[in-house]
């Protein structure tokens, strides 16, 4: 009996210290003076090889004595591994981020780069996605956006003019009906298994719904979830499903890559895709032919809307807060975003690079159409939301499709989550 009491005390005693320390480690520094470690999910790709080589060469010119080590992590585990490194307060000196929430949630672990990259501000585009509270935390490598792609071959088969896609939602619905009747293809390829479908829908079609002022206010953080425009986005999400515009089984279709496979195989006429990496012009072109990949502005749903291309900084490199020499690491970031490196990335990996001085006119009609829209483009609607709100929106979007929540109910929950963030 006595022994048991002793054991219990021994086991419970540490709990008396409850609430001490922290789950994420406080700052500490890591060693390794002459080696910079870079974490990303790109450097292992064959397509990104020339980019890494060019960046390394650029950096070696300035710092011949510093070694750079690239560690490619699997993307689906990347933020888990990074989270562990951040909690430990040691890890890579330079790390790759997706723009938006993934970066903003982790700015505690990053060095503000404003002073280091001031000279690149003009040359590169897409800084907003890597900016939080007025500071820049990473330099953009690619631009990521959500153009509305369409299959010109299906337009032709339905007797429509592939060079004159619909400008308004009514015309768009009429075109879709014609295409479905003539070819059997669905209007939209849609996959919402991961809850990403709603994000692409919001950003891809939102510019045709929200007026410019409301759009800018949304991006700036002033979001009214009860406004008629925002409500219209979610109503349209439900209507599109109920009107049979989407492929079957939206909630069990993975966006990556079942949704894009539907578009690739000509089973759907439209898809809100990406600009870089995957689900983009290069991939679609390989399947349906470069000449058949069309890019159209979002059809106008509300008359006050003036559609623009929604895009942000896609991926970018940031400097870890625990690195020994932030200036050295920032130099590496500058090399990774140098014109020579980004030119290689654009040419080989099929990404719209963040460098506005690269000439992209020779890469097919879809690319040309996207690049032409860049100067007037605005940040995508969903990128402005926190990771937590996006996760909730994904879940609610699935409930909207199955009818277990109303649009008003979903908006109320989202407003609460967005307000709390």
């Amino acid at each position: 009996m006595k022994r048991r009491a002793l054991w219990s005390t021994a086991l419970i005693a540490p709990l008396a210290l409850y609430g001490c320390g922290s789950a994420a480690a406080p700052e500490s520094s890591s060693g390794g003076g002459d080696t910079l470690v870079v974490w990303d999910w790109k450097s292992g790709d064959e397509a990104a090889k020339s980019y890494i080589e060019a960046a390394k060469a650029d950096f070696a010119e300035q710092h011949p004595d510093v070694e750079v080590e690239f560690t490619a992590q699997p993307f689906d585990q990347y933020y888990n591994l990074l989270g562990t490194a951040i909690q430990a307060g040691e890890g890579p000196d330079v790390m790759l981020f997706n723009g938006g929430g993934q970066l903003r949630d982790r700015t505690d672990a990053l060095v503000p780069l404003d002073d280091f990259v001031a000279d690149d501000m003009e040359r590169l585009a897409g800084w907003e996605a890597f900016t939080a509270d007025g500071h820049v935390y990473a330099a953009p490598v690619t631009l990521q956006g959500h153009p509305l792609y369409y299959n010109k071959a299906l337009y032709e088969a339905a007797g429509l003019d592939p060079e004159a896609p619909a400008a308004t939602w009514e015309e768009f619905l009429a075109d879709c009906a014609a295409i479905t009747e003539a070819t059997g293809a669905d209007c939209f390829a849609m996959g919402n298994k991961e809850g990403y479908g709603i994000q692409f829908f919001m950003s891809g079609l939102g510019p045709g719904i929200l007026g410019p002022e409301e759009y800018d206010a949304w991006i700036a953080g002033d979001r009214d979830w009860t406004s008629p425009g925002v409500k219209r986005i979610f109503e349209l999400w439900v209507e599109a499903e109920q009107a049979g515009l989407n492929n079957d089984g939206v909630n069990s279709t993975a966006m990556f890559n079942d949704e894009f496979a539907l578009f690739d195989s000509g089973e759907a006429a439209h898809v809100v895709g990406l600009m870089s990496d995957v689900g983009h012009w290069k991939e679609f072109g390989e399947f349906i032919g470069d000449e058949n990949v069309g890019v159209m502005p979002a059809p106008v749903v509300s008359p006050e809307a003036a559609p623009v291309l929604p895009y942000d900084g896609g991926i970018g490199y940031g400097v870890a807060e625990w690195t020994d020499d932030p200036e050295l690491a920032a130099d590496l970031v500058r090399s990774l975003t140098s014109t020579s490196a980004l030119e290689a990335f654009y040419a080989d990996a099929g990404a719209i690079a963040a460098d506005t001085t690269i000439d992209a006119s020779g890469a097919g009609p879809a690319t040309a159409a996207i690049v032409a829209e860049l100067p007037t483009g605005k940040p995508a609607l969903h990128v402005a939301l926190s990771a937590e709100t996006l996760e909730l929106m994904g879940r609610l979007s699935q409930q909207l499709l199955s009818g277990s929540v109303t649009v008003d109910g979903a908006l109320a929950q989202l407003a609460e989550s967005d307000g709390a963030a």
Partner: protein
Amino acid sequence: MPIGNPPPQVASEVLGPAGSTARAGVRAARGRRRGNQRFHRADRLAPYILVAPAVLIIAGLRLYPLALGVNFSFTGDGDRNGQAVGLDNYSALFDDPLFTAAMRNVGLLVLLLPVAVAIPGLLATLIYLRVPGHRVYRGVYFFPAVLSPVIIGAIFNLLLAFDGPANSLLGAVGLGPVDWLGDPDTAMYAVVGVHIWATFGMALVVFLAGFATLDPSLIDAARVDGASIPKVVRHVIVPGLSQTIQFVVVTTMIGMLTSMFGLLYVMTGGGPEGSTYLPEYYIWFQQGQMGRPALASAASTVLFGVMLVVGMLQLAVLRRSGRED
């Protein structure tokens, strides 16, 4: 070495030159005393030294992290990192519909446990009773147990897709398509069904091993007396296998609560509508994806509590069955 025997080296010290027998005797006696003391100390320490590695490993790698995790569950995330926040994480946890859904799913798993045990039990019985082709089935049933959950998940993702073969089959017999993994009412059952399919081979082997210990003469006797197969199963086989059944219940329960992550990750990712979350998936999600390690610690602590209760109950059941024998 039996504890309490005199140390052997004392005997050699007694052997000295003949002229100094007396002194040697005294020295020997002193030596014996010193030897005994040395021996007693070593004797007392030996058990501690022998268990030390195990205790250190358990304390350092199990208990300390456990205490640390419980401790972290009372601290904050993000801006409040490192501050004591009392029970805030726990109240956030039970306010979170995702977490309550995860706990409900644990309850569902417990309810589905009898099915998960009955399937291998029934199939093992049929093999034991030598239905035609039993040799083939024995191998075939075990086959999925050697596949990784990721591969199984990928296979069933294809089979259960909305336009996949499962729905084509249903369509052929005139039934409407079911969105197996896209409908929150069916998704959890689909994943649990696949998990049972994937793992019942192991339980089947355990059952077959249990059957090997059954006395065949009892079954023969029952058959001679004209008992039907259901009656043989009910009155002869089940009572004879009670210990095996209990063992399978415990291991299946542990398997369901701790190794569904891979399947969930590949098949549903916790969706649709958050309907297929389990606590371990929730912990992974909050820690890694949302960057909330303290909240994840709180969820881990709750899961630890649940597992502790389940484990205690199972131990109690096992101990009682041991006493019955």
